């Protein structure tokens, strides 16, 4: 009954939304036009999305990093409690897979780093690169369940990259007059070269490290929050 009523609601909602589609023809608004016109001149970045993400809407991105930080903290908080949990049963890792994974680890990390270093030039950036780095960590976790990440190093990376982002913003404030400003501190450089875009690559590298560390920590805690299974009440 509840399901039927709910379905009717969902369908009507779908109709409402679908009725919008004819009204949503292709068009470019003010912001879009501005960024396509000025994006390159303002920041000397080839990738306009990166310019938007890191510079024009850099404050959003800082918030986004905080969201990721909060959710990984939250997952840790939920899973790593004083009483135990059933852990993931290991997948049987064949020798072939294990060898492949070990072999893939280093190239994956390098590839991830390449993505976030070139975020202002090519598609991709800190978030995508960070995710790739995390998938390298995933490889290790998959083949060796007992392997723990080096917590000390992770903590330092995580803390300093996040703090670095804020600090860069503050430097922008001190030099350029507004938080995360890309003006006046560093030369914007030559378009389409590695050293262009002013602070943008620096910030994206910090984001990459931060995201890579956070996502790795997330995977680690999903795999490893071990302990003895506590009493299961109300077993269905």
């Amino acid at each position, binding site marked *: 009954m509840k399901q039927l009523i709910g379905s009717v609601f969902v369908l009507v909602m779908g109709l409402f939304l679908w009725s919008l589609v004819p009204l949503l023809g292709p068009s470019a608004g003010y912001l879009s036009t501005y960024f396509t016109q000025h994006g390159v001149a303002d920041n000397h970045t080839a990738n306009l999305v990166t310019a938007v993400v890191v510079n024009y*809407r850099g404050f959003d991105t*800082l918030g986004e990093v905080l969201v990721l930080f*909060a959710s990984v903290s939250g997952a840790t908080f939920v899973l790593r409690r004083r009483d135990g949990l059933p852990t993931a049963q290991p997948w049987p890792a064949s020798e072939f897979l294990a060898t492949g994974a070990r072999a893939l680890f280093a190239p994956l990390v390098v590839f991830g780093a390449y993505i976030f270093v070139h975020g202002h030039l090519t598609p991709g950036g800190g978030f995508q690169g960070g995710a790739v780095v995390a998938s390298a960590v995933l490889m290790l976790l998959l083949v060796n369940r007992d392997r723990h990440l080096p917590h000390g190093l992770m903590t330092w990376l*995580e803390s300093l990259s996040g703090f670095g982002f804020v600090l860069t913003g503050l430097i922008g404030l*001190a030099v350029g007059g507004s938080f995360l400003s890309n003006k006046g501190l560093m030369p914007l450089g030559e378009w389409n070269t590695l050293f262009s875009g002013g602070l943008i690559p620096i910030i994206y590298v910090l984001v990459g490290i931060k995201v890579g560390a956070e996502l790795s920590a997330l995977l680690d805690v999903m795999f490893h929050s071990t302990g003895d299974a506590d009493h299961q009440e109300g077993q269905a």
Partner: protein
Amino acid sequence: MVANLLDPILLFALPMGVAFLLPLIDKLGRSVTHAVHLLVLAAMFGLTGWWTWQLAHGMAPIEIQTGGWAPPIGIALRLGVTEGLLALFAQGAALFGAVYLWGREEHGDIRAIALQLALVVGALGLFMTRDLFNIFVFVEITGIATYALAMLGREDSALEAGFKYMLMGSAASIFLLLGIALLYKHTGHLNLDAMQAALAQGSPAALSVALGLVFMLVLVSFAAELKLFPVNGPGLDMYEGVDPGVSALMVVTSVNGYLYAFYKVLAVFPAEWGTTVSVLGMVTFVGANLMANRQTQVRRMLGYSSSAQVGLLVALLPMVRAGHVHMLPVLLLIANHTFAKSALLWLAGQGEKLSLVEWRGVFSGRTIQRLTLTAAVLAITGLPPFPGFFGKWEVLTDLSAHGGAWWIGAILLGSLLEFGYYFKWLHYAHQGEESDVPQVPVSAQIAPALSAAVLLVGGLGMSLWRFPELANLSLPVAVLLGAGLALVLVRELSSVVSSGLALLVVLGVVGVTVGAGLELNTLAGLFTALALAGGTVTAIAALSVPTLKGAYHGLFLLLLSSVLMVVQSEHSLTFFVGWELMTWTSYLLIAQGREGARPAWVYMLFSGAAGFLLLGGLLVGYAHGVDSFSGMEALTGSAQLAAWSLLVLGILVKIGTVGAHVWAPDAYTESPDVYTAFLSGVISKVPVFALVLVLAHLGTGALTMGGYTFELHHLVAWLGGLTALGMSLLALFQEDAKKLLAYSSVGQLGYVVAGVAILSPLGWAAGLYHAVHHLGFKAMLLLVLAGVIHRTGTRKMYEMGGLIARMPLSFFIAMIGIIALAGVPPLGGFVGKWLLYNALVEEGWLFLAALMMFSSLVAFLYLYRFIHTIFLGQLKTRHREIKEAPLPYLLAEVALLGLVGLVSVWPQAVLSPVNAIAHSYLGGRGLGFEGELVFPGGVVRGSELVTSFGSYDPVVTMLVVALVFVLSAGLLWVSVPRARRVGQLDIAFAGEVPPPPEEIHFAFDFHRPYERVFGAVLRGQAVKFWRGFGDAVEAIAETSRGIYSGDGQTYLVYFFGLAVLLGALQMGL
């Protein structure tokens, strides 16, 4: 360059940077982490305070850019006064919250502190950002931080609640994302100001349909985030399930953030769509407050309350935008909710999941928490002097000026429902012996106390700044307020010291008032005199009660000051502030009786209703630009009638006229014995004062229908008459002596009401004279009874008897009191009734006059029983050794005896001021004073009272009666033989088992014959009605809260349903 750094963006950079660094900081030690946490919050508070101070003193709002781009290109933030104040509330309360949670993350880890900082950052972002997508990001930050923190502390219920809350939050954030994207597509902007400008320029007609749907998406999303009806299910679970420290943080940060973000987003849409928002908010306010009344879990109850309060604020937002309501009062309401609700939640953290009944006695002997709870409950229910009162007051007056009668009605209804459950909790927590619930750590006691202190100081400061007329208190009121507050704070001060201090203060105030020349010929003067007389006498009597400590005496002084405030007020606001102060101080005093908690709760409900009716009447005045009673003369037509009806109805409920009397007898009976005298003698007269004012300024309440005009004051007079009769009859059937006097008190007020309602000089003379005289004799009788109870330890009349032998003075005073009450010459009772009959006959209201005479006869019956059963007959064995009442009681009684004697022999003392008052309001000639009485020692002029029907000379009557008494007593003494005393045990039983002792007592169920005649009509009819009414309300609440089935999936269906409903509305389907 460094100067650049002093930018409000620091409010984000600082906590974010510290949150990221926290794992490293923690390596230095946990205490360092705690210190850093508090320091960061304090630094943010300080910075915000500094900016807000400048902003409030004329600095232009600070526009903050990010990324180096001015809006609409980059993300812009704004720090104006409103944002600054909101940020201060959030940071301040979060600071207290950090104190509350001090050391609680030991079980989890350091991340809890980082998450707390993230919550504050999220709230600040929601306050300050001017960018729509940025709002989305900050919504997610607060949301995720809340989901994560939910796991702090307790486990199972938090898991369940957190997950359901997350489901709802995720659905809401998808809707918000879609809405934001469509708005961006629609306008090409993400900056709110640019967006608003683009939309204001007008858009293609086809897109306005789209805009309607976007509005739906945004509204549904915020409804879920703000926990509005019907999508508040998971929110309620959160309040019940998670640690109160976390839910308090949620209230102070994210809820306020969503609220203000919603306000900003609303500005994008057409103003007329705001009505939908207001309706949704108001339904939540009334509905959640209704359902909260069925809660037994305090934390869930607080959840309903939060939902309700936020609903009210949401309802107000579109009105603020339309310019119908000012922003400042809404900010006051937000501050009030922030600090009061957080304090209440922290207090609810006492023990694990206590249900209402288990709260019994939890705060007994825990002074700080008891005071905190009381203050927080008073604040959240919107009583003065807390910010909520002033916020609500200003919102309501703003609304009344814009014809928002329905909104006002809904707000008042919801507020009344709020009284029901909050005072229930308060009364449970205050009553009973100390419970064995363990005490919480000091940090958990300090945090709520800090919040309560902010509320008190902030409320007082804000009110004096915003309403200068309140600062204009007379010296006595100010002294009483200060002394009262001081004594309340040292509530455990011993009875001897505190009662002595209180008496000194009262005497001082009397001295000051008399020294300043009390003008008795004004209404204010007359009632000031009445209040001070009653106050002095009660303060004297209280000297002999060892159980009443500082708390009682402090509240008593506060109460006295509020009475003076009411009767001396020249402004509707001052009047109402005094009135509500009187209501809650009186509530707390009643609750101090041994069994006083529940009667006090009932009292509070009726008083709350009365207060809101009065407020409604005052607001009719504000709708027409009138802010005082005297100004109300300008009202005409339906406004006049509306104001008249609301005010009179409120007054009648507060007086306890028949029908609404159910609260009164129990409240009178269960109060501390000394306080009952003041309640009956003075407090019950304050509504009479209001009635005089209303009738004087608003006339007879003429109701014209179909060419007929009916004057409603007839109805009031009849209600007075029926009260007199009904209460007298009910007094007959009481076994409890105090309850007998309680019913009698209400009945006597019936005479006063009838007299005042006649609205003629003679009627006022009757009513007001009787009001003053009633203070004399009723307080006297109640104090005598208090003395008897003090000595015998019982209130049951059949357990007393023959006390004349042990307490002859008390008997003598009681006898005088009874003669005065009975209305027979030579005492003042007769004067009052004689005047009343004259006034009634003068108006030609003969039936009412007959009714009054009949009820006077009934009074004889219960009075006879009172004196006969208590003082005459046989002395109980166990009372052989008891002593006369304590000296303070006797002193107070003698003082009252003096008052009764004065007004009996020399009624002009009261009547000539009353005459002058009546003349000043009503004009015409009232009562005449004539005649000349020649004594051996001189001549007394004007001792004779003359009306158009005849005259009465109390002095002559007194002399004649005294003569007859002496003669007949002497005759009896000489002629009748001595009676033989029979011992109480001179009764033999022939081997039977005797029936229970009370049944063989001759006075048990003494008036059964009358009860057979009247009982069926009288006993319990009104009680039955109100109980049925209450049951009906509870049944509605019970049924409607069934929609919160606990199933997270059902909650999602509600979410979709709300979307469909609002979508259909917006598309005009």
